[in-house]
């Protein structure tokens, strides 16, 4: 009676795991096609648990785009949670795609979106459960083509051995060409190796097996060369040039269980003008390209009608920088109020405008306001080019307190380049100043028997490729812990310390993230070794086994601190230098030097820094500049 009642997993097993809904498919707007009528079957995997993966916009975009092609059927795969993982192994059930419930092993492609380094062992889990050889070199014509994409694929070297190819950049541009090539090769009966060789000529496609890496005696890279003349020496990131005409899904899949992002997400722009030196996303998605308010609104209405969600969220790196934000919000507020739809606006800069907006859209619920000063002193904020002054923070807080907010969250990073004890102590100082601002702004009779609550949260800075801090040393875990201690003392010494709560994250996971972020091909044996020792779901602290990782590093004879704590020379060849993000190494180096001199730089709307993204010929790069470098407009 039901086409998909042939679930891959028997009832007895589904009833014995947590959240069986993760494995049954059949969600609203999921796509069922006739397998006999398509040429390309694509299994798209977010290598983490279902609720996390279902919250990712990127998969929803490519899922919709691929399924808009009549000859392609794209399905979804997520990492089975450890309880299901054990059952699949025990009962020899091969991992399957949700829609058809058929084994992933029989698909043409298995695509992974790589959003964070800590998911690497989960990639191996998915390959392993699918019965696909972990190493690309062991795969045959019977195996799917394993393809990676997303921010971590821009330094794909630590996982290069596990992938047949990587798609560098935004997927909307050249997947069609890849599918066409695949179909042609399949029709002509050409072997896998020939397909990969030909795929390497498609813009944005990186086939790691076609590149040879040599090392110096000190372990750093001597050279990365393509093995053949027809394989490009450098692979440039693919970029969508017109955000208003690019595909966006009208009907995203709506999970039965509550996903982490349980709402319609409208992507209002890509890229960021800010150029914060620690931020990888700010560099990876350049240049800033806006989607017009009208296009966003049309998307929102269609998606709300097709999903039934009662909340819409505007997604971008820095919503306040969208030039049509006021217009878009007016349009949304008008419709949403009528239809009982809530609006959520993450990544807003806290100023009078945004507080006014929040007042309008968030009823009277005054949840906490979040500021991300990132560093405790103005000197360090300048060094990281976080264009936020002490006065911005205090006046933002003042406005918020006037508007009735009492809870403030503050995010900082410890271990930023050039950080001194003064910067750590500065965190307590600014938190204290915000509390003082509250007592000055809100008279006692207006406090409703309550008081200001400030939460200070610090994470440990992890240097990432393609940022000015790609040359930076990362501190060792024990130093991080020490700095958290200094920060805590700094907070405790403040007059208003009773109103300030301090939380910090443990440093072990940051170390690993740091290793993989700037790692090379030698690390694939470590990732594989740790996986074989039972490491997976490393992003989940209760599943994270630091000891097993350290043990594996030792067994492989690899020092993790080579990747994190080493000082990198200005002219070092990096493992990711053959991937061209559009931002030049020269520009990043200029910014690195400026950081060491604690000098800030202009943002893209004020003055062009010549980062190189102009080659894409789109977005903010084509706009006139204000020429001023005044902080904020």
């Amino acid at each position, binding site marked *: 009676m039901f086409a998909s009642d042939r679930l891959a997993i028997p009832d007895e097993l589904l*009833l014995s795991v947590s959240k069986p809904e993760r494995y049954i498919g059949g969600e609203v707007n999921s796509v069922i096609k006739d397998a006999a009528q398509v040429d390309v079957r694509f299994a798209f995997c977010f290598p983490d648990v279902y609720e996390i993966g279902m919250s990712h916009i990127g998969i929803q975009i490519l899922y919709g785009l691929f399924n808009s092609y009549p000859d392609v059927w794209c399905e979804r795969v997520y990492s089975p949670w450890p309880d299901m993982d054990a059952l699949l192994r025990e009962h020899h059930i091969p991992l399957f795609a949700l829609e058809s419930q058929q084994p992933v092993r029989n698909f043409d492609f298995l695509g992974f979106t790589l959003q964070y380094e800590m998911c690497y062992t989960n990639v191996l889990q998915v390959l392993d459960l699918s019965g696909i050889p972990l190493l690309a070199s062991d795969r045959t014509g019977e195996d799917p083509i394993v393809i990676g994409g997303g921010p971590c694929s821009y330094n794909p070297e630590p996982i290069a051995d596990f992938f047949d190819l990587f798609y560098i950049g935004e997927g909307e541009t050249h997947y069609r060409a890849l599918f066409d090539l695949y179909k042609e090769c399949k029709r002509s009966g050409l072997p896998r190796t020939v397909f990969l060789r030909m795929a390497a000529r498609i813009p944005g496609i990186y086939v790691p097996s076609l590149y040879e890496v040599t090392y110096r005696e000190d372990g750093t890279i001597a050279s990365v060369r393509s093995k053949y003349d027809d394989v490009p020496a450098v692979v440039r990131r693919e970029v969508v040039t017109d955000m208003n005409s690019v595909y966006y899904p009208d009907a995203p899949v*709506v999970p039965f269980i509550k996903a982490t992002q349980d709402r319609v997400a409208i992507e209002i722009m890509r890229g960021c003008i800010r150029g914060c030196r620690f931020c990888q996303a700010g560099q990876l998605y350049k240049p800033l390209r806006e989607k017009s308010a009208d296009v966003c609104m049309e998307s929102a209405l269609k998606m709300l009608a097709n999903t039934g969600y009662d909340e819409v969220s505007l997604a971008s790196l820095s919503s306040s920088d969208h030039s049509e934000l006021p217009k878009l919000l007016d349009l949304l507020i008008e419709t949403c109020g009528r239809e009982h739809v809530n609006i959520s606006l993450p990544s807003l800069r806290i100023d009078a405008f945004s507080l006014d907006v929040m007042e309008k859209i968030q009823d009277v619920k005054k949840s906490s306001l979040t500021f991300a000063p990132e560093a405790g002193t103005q000197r360090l904020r300048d060094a990281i080019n976080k264009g936020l002054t002490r006065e911005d923070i205090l006046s933002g807080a003042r406005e918020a307190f006037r508007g009735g907010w009492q809870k403030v969250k503050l995010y900082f990073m410890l271990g930023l380049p050039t950080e001194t004890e003064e910067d750590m102590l500065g965190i307590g100082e600014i938190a204290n100043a915000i509390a003082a601002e509250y007592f000055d702004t809100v008279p006692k009779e207006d406090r409703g028997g309550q008081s200001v609550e400030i939460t200070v949260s610090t994470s440990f800075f992890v240097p990432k490729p393609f940022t000015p801090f790609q040359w930076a040393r990362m501190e060792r875990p024990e130093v991080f812990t020490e700095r958290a201690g200094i920060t805590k003392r700094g907070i405790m010494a403040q007059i208003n310390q009773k109103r300030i709560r301090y939380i910090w994250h443990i440093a072990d996971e940051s170390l690993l993230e740091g290793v993989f972020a700037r790692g090379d091909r030698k690390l694939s044996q470590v990732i594989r070794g740790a996986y074989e020792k039972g490491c997976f779901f490393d992003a989940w602290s209760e599943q994270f086994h630091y000891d097993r990782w350290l043990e594996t590093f030792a067994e492989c004879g690899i020092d993790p601190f080579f990747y994190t704590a080493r000082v990198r020379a200005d002219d070092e060849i990096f493992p990711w230098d053959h991937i061209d993000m559009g931002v030049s190494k020269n520009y990043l180096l200029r910014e690195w030097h400026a950081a060491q001199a604690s000098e800030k730089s202009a943002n893209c709307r004020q003055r062009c820094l010549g980062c190189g993204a102009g080659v894409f010929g789109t977005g903010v790069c084509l706009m006139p500049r204000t020429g001023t470098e005044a902080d904020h407009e």
Partner: protein
Amino acid sequence: MSDFFDYRVKLTKLGPVRFVGHLDVMRYMQKAVRRAGLPIRYSEGYSPHQIMAFALPLSVGATSGGEYMDISLVSQVSPDEIVASLNRVMHEGITAIACMRLPEHYTGAMTVIAAASYDITIREPVVMRLFGGEEKDLPLARTSCKIALGDFFAQEKILTIKKTKKGEQQIDLKPLIHRYEILEDGTARLLLHAGSKDHVKPSLLFGEFFKARGYEMTPADLMIHRSDLFTEEEYEGGTRYVPLIADTDDTAATGGQQTGRGETDGGIFR
């Protein structure tokens, strides 16, 4: 006259969605109502929610031929249109099969429930394990199981221990089994007392059946289909059980599995 219009909708839950839990079904229906464009009424207050209430949660893994949801609309829509507009936007498995307008001061679906009908089948591996004997012959095991079930339900008392807030309490389930029949294939077709008071969970009942055979049941051992929910009414000096939305003719409940037909008339147990 009231400013709003209340309806009771009957739904089936069949196929893979049997693994979708009760709260998620509620969230699913809230979204379906929005997609259908029904003029649902929202509660007052600073975090308004849809006026929607479900009768009797169904356990994960069980299918159903009769789930009920009460909704309140701000304008009048014909019951047929409510069914049609929901079915236009719902995915496979959950289907609206009937709808009725409720009177102004109605009693909620949860409150009026007096009984639930079930088709319960013991899964094959468990049948084999308990009744397979040394020959491990499935037809034989099925027959033994059928006989054992018949004997079990024919007992004068079926005692069980129910855990309450005050501690453990021994109760007799037998008076709460309003009807039973063991079908040819070994399926137990039951009409069990249900609702907020003295609710009989099938797992509690079958737990006793298994316990008598030294076996501790797991939720996966039973295939449960809850065919309908009933309210109780006086009838010719006795009690009869009427589905929350009674079939007006034989075609009404097309999506659901018809149960208890032997003794019923239009789905009504007498």
